[in-house]
């Protein structure tokens, strides 16, 4: 079988020679450098929205927010791409936007490090870049807009301390994916929020990895281990809904109170769950889509040079009292 061996040797050597031996120069920002069109009113602008993963409802709502807000600005046209959670695909998406000659880039990066170079390439070509939700490294972008998960967790904690369990009680926490920043921050903020009421006790913490079905199975187990739970603090709405289903199967859904986070204005989202009485409350994690278009308008139409480098979005507490109104306000379709 020396032919086989020869074949594999040839391939290995070629591969090696090519990965190690060649001398080439690094890419600079080259093609399409006619920068962004001049700013000003009454002009047409093409905005590229590079999304990390349309399959997540939160990101779909973010796309919808961007598109809806842009429709209200004369001259704005938005094109959306979906990287389907693939860093390479998102790099290619941005490259394609640059080929098309977009006037402004909005990007919600899949991961920071792999997208940093292509975002810098756009920025260096003079295209304003607005980064949403997840950051990139360095400062080669125009503005970052994102939520504050510690503040959201704290708002939830304060609601528990003052409104939901003023007399104290036993709380179980269903947390997001271990190792993810939002999960850590929502846990930390909640503990700061309930600190003012020492009678509230977190009796158990289990992860359900952001998933509704895992929320259900985790709650099944906790109902057996913890006989008298007063409330469930879930790091997002789907896990809270899953926990509610488990409690309902055990006939305890009225004895236990459930809260979530995210408050997406969609039929399967947390606001509807609050309106329909399954959850006591949910806390909005804003997409930043509308704020991004506001900034884009300032940059492109109003020619503003002075936009904030970083914007932190606030949260909204949603209970039965304001659920219907919030749903409409946040752009939900009936």
């Amino acid at each position: 079988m020396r032919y086989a061996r020869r074949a594999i040797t040839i391939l290995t050597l070629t591969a090696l020679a090519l990965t190690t031996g060649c001398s080439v120069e690094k890419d600079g920002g080259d093609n399409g450098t006619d920068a962004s069109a001049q700013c000003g009113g009454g002009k047409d602008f093409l905005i590229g929205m590079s999304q990390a993963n349309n399959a997540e409802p939160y990101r779909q709502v973010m796309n919808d927010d961007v598109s809806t807000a842009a429709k209200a600005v004369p001259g704005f046209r938005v094109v959306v791409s979906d990287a389907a959670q693939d860093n390479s695909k998102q790099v290619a998406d941005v490259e394609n936007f640059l080929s098309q000659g977009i006037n402004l880039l909005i990007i919600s990066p899949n991961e920071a490090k792999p997208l940093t170079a292509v975002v810098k390439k756009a920025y260096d070509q003079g295209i304003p870049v607005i980064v949403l939700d997840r950051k990139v490294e360095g400062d080669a972008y125009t503005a970052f807009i994102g939520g504050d998960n510690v503040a959201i967790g704290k708002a939830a904690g304060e609601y528990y301390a003052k409104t939901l369990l003023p007399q104290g009680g036993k709380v179980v926490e269903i947390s997001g994916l271990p190792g993810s920043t939002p999960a850590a921050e929502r846990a930390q903020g909640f503990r700061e929020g309930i600190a003012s009421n020492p009678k509230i006790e977190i009796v158990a913490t289990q992860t359900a990895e952001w998933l509704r079905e895992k929320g259900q199975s985790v709650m099944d187990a906790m109902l057996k281990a913890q006989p008298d739970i007063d409330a469930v603090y879930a790091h997002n709405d789907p896990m809270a809904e899953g926990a509610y289903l488990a409690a309902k199967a055990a006939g305890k859904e009225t004895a236990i109170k459930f809260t979530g986070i995210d408050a997406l204005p969609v039929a399967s989202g947390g606001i509807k769950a609050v309106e329909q009485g399954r959850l006591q409350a949910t806390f909005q994690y804003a997409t930043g889509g509308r704020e991004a278009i506001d900034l884009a308008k300032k940059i492109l139409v109003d020619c503003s040079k002075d936009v904030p480098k970083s914007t932190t979005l606030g949260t909204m507490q949603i209970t039965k009292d304001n659920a219907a109104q919030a749903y409409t306000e946040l752009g939900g379709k009936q």
Partner: protein
Amino acid sequence: MNPPNPTTVAASPPETPPSRRAIRLPKDRHAIVDNFFRFQSLFGLVAVFLIAIAVSPSRNGENVFLSSGNLANIVRAVSEIGIIAVGMTFVILIGGIDLSVGAVLGLAAVGSATLMVDSGLGIVPTVLIVLFIGTAFGATQGAIVARIGIQSFIVTLAGLQAARGIARMWSGGLGIPIAYGEGPQEAPEAFSLLSGSINGVLPVPALIFLAIGVGALLVLRSTAFARHVYAIGGNEKAARLSGVPVRRVRVTVFAISGLLAALAGIIHAGQLNQGSPNDGAGYELDAIAAVVIGGTSLAGGSGSMGGTIAGALLLGILNNILALNNIDANVQLVVKGLVIVAAAALQRLRPRIA
């Protein structure tokens, strides 16, 4: 002993034995039809290329699709899948399949990042070790297929899980960023050339794909190894009886696939400045799609390397032109599915007409 009918199997793709009906066709018409199917993917590539030019948006009077920057983006974007697809072609030609390549790519990307950043190795030892890991992984799968006789679908499905698991354990589950420089925890600057271009025109990954593709094309055209590959895919029993070392060819073919997946993983890490254990998910399916569009039969024994290269480029152009025209991401998936089915359907027509 020689493999059966060596003159036929040496050609790529090998001609199917003419049926009675085909013989009755006028000779020149037969040749035209046969050549059409033989170079089906090349015609497809040219057709898609021309359509792309026609439907491309223009910017400042320039055709966006044809701009050099855009063409460079296309070849850069297809190079990883293309390199994997070259290895996949060998596997599919013997009637096998390799589902582990995407996960091996992730493992290789993690390996490249860890060895350079955490272990402080230079580029050459890193590349050698990572290529060895990929080759050994592929060879192990090939040995299990050849010795124990489990179907390659199952073995490489298990391999996919294992490679993904090893990559996550090695990296601690998170992407390992690659920073460049001389200090500790920094990779040699030269590694970032993988994301560069030659004269700012030809991206380095595309050049590697081109070289691997041409190399594999030559191997498949003119070596005894290639004749063995076609012979096993055509009729394994006959191949074994005529003295083809079936087991060794099997192991070799899976080793090549693993080697090329690892090479693609190194390029991946260099392009994205990161080795993430989750990268490369689903790449095996894109590679299989490129092979199928290239006219290689999943049943084995018939197909060509040129077809695979054309198939990979066709997919890349398709992705690009759909994106340039801002076709909705969900519609893009449907269009890609239709193209794959159309290519496979053309293949089915072939033995009936030609």
